[in-house]
């Protein structure tokens, strides 16, 4: 169909799909049910999840002492995992909101799963601030609710309270955003469903969507507004997370560049995670024509960009530490590089600064296996970034007499594995029961980069065609 290819753009969706085919490809998967790979994957992730559950239950019964923490290092794996997962989440919002505002139409085929990823990542993240408490059963005390203990409120000066509100909002908005996007697809599923059960379930969820264009119009407005809200929100969330450390007095934590540094890092790791998942999904679910090399390349480019910002942040940190002339600040960073935890620092540098540079090469970007490996390396590196910031800074702060080391306990490791198990399990269930590609949006970009055959076109419609081809379409 070479003659059908536009001279201006390469198509976003390959295989010259028609709207029906799209519906079939996406929904058919849900009717047919997943293949063997899916079941294997679920078995593995469910096992990991179980490990985590066992660990957490044991910890809740026995005490937080079952973690490797001590008087000096009060946070380590727990908050590292928290920040890591929050960071992962950010890519989803970025794809669905920011790329939307930037009219990046290639996002349509990945944004649904990216948003799902956001929600699951935030769930994983949200667990840690709760279980890291000494008395998790009192976690609700951080919520300001009217009570009979006389005037008794919470401390709105505490970054942990900011966290609570930020993550709560972030989760809610992401969920709403995701659901609103799903409504038209639920309608499609409803109209093609055969079994009574499916019809009723999808019918319930589709809120009686009928594809009326009056509704479409408002729908687009809402989508735009939510995107506009989610964009500053996602920035604020990781900014606030970074304030947990930036507002403290601990050298290595007390750093003003944290907000941009953390946001960039979040996007960086988030895209790596999207890549990891998408590369698996397109392979396992045969979505090669929807999630194309083009997508993988674009995401790799974003990784290069954000990776650059992260690298610059590392340099700035070191420079400021040196330039400040503050003995504690200097020591904190020298200690990071050459101290007992130096290995962690160098893993971080290797994975986060060196790895992305490979993506400058088109050959590597288009080598899916390689990109897959790199994306995993980057995730490892970003996990270590948080570990380096949190644990190393705490382990050696001011009074040398209180310096100490930290080694994770089995329970902590199991909890980390469990959080991955939870994430993957949720994701697998998602691709099994929900359309992992935004049908409505993809249909909007089918014609993108494709000529229409002018035969039998009514006079005066040529203009319309050019409009369709030239102007950004999709569900704006």
């Amino acid at each position, binding site marked *: 169909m070479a003659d059908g290819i536009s001279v201006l753009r390469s198509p976003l969706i390959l295989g010259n799909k028609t709207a029906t085919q799209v519906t079939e490809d996406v929904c058919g998967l849900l009717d047919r049910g997943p293949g063997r790979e899916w079941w294997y994957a679920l078995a593995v992730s469910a096992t990991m999840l179980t490990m985590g559950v066992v660990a957490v239950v044991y910890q809740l019964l026995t005490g937080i002492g079952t973690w490797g923490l001590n008087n000096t290092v009060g946070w380590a794996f727990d908050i590292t995992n928290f920040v890591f997962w929050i960071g992962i989440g950010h890519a989803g919002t970025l794809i669905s909101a920011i790329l939307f505002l930037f009219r990046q139409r290639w996002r349509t085929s990945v944004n649904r799963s990216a948003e799902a990823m956001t929600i699951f990542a935030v769930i994983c993240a949200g667990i840690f601030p709760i279980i890291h408490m000494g008395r998790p059963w009192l976690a609700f005390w951080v919520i300001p609710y009217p009570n009979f203990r006389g005037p008794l409120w919470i401390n709105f000066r505490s970054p942990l309270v900011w966290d609570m509100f930020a993550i709560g909002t972030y989760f809610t908005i992401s969920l709403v*955003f995701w659901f*609103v996007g799903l409504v038209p697809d639920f309608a499609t599923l409803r109209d093609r469903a055969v079994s009574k059960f499916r019809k009723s379930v999808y019918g319930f969820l589709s809120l009686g969507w009928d594809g009326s*264009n009056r509704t479409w119009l408002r729908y687009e407005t809402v989508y735009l507004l939510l995107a506009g809200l989610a964009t500053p929100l996602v920035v604020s969330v990781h900014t606030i997370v970074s304030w947990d450390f930036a507002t403290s007095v601990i050298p290595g934590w007390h750093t003003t560049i944290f907000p941009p540094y953390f946001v960039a890092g979040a996007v960086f790791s988030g895209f790596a995670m999207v890549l990891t998942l998408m590369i698996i999904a397109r392979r396992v679910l045969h979505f090669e024509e929807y999630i194309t090399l083009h997508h993988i390349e674009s995401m790799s480019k974003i990784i290069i960009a954000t990776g650059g910002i992260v690298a610059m942040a590392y340099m700035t940190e070191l420079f400021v530490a040196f330039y400040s002339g503050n003995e504690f600040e200097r020591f904190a960073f020298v200690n990071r590089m050459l101290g007992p935890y130096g290995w962690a620092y160098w893993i971080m540098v290797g994975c986060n600064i060196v790895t992305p540079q490979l993506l400058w090469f088109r050959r590597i970007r288009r080598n899916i296996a390689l990109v897959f490996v790199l994306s995993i390396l980057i995730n490892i590196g970003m996990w270590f970034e948080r570990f380096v910031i949190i644990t190393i800074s705490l382990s050696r702060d001011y009074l040398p007499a209180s310096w100490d080391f930290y080694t994770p306990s089995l329970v902590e490791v199991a909890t980390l594995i469990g959080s991955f198990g939870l994430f993957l399990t949720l994701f697998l269930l998602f691709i099994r029961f929900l359309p992992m590609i935004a049908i409505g949006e993809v249909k909007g970009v089918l014609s993108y980069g494709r000529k229409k055959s002018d035969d039998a076109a009514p006079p005066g419609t040529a203009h319309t065609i050019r409009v369709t081809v030239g102007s950004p379409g999709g569900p704006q």
Partner: protein
Amino acid sequence: MSKRLFIAYFENEEDILGVTRAARESGYDIRDVFSPYAVHGLDKAMGLRPSRLPWICLGFALLGAAAKLWFQIWTSAFDWPVNVGGKPMASIPAFVPVTFEISVLFAGLGTVAAFFLISRLRPGKKPAIRLDRATNDRYVLILVENDAGFDASAAAALCKEFRCVHFEERLEDEQ
């Protein structure tokens, strides 16, 4: 009295755009247009006014911000003033983050709620009109035969001009 509806099905985005514009220009009363996805330009073709949801959004944002800021100052400076780390009772800068988050939360939820309300979308609701493949790959134009002057054949001709695949007429109460 029940109205008669003229329902025409199309296959291509450009056809539905064309026919809608043409129908409006030739003075037909367009009940609605249905499509599997948001077709860009249809709102103009149908002559719809842009939505007022942004104003609702703004309203909710401001409401949330104001409420939360007041709440923080009230709890920490008036209802239960307590010395925390030597900071002032009303440490306004420290109250900014939560204020922002809450305003975003209000705005988001408010807008979506308004949207569902205006568009009469609610869980379990049945679609108003059963239209074959309207959520799959068909574009449907519905005209209202409101006056005796309505000429179904003329409308059909217009639709055919835009490669209409199929048309039918229904009594409104059939739905």
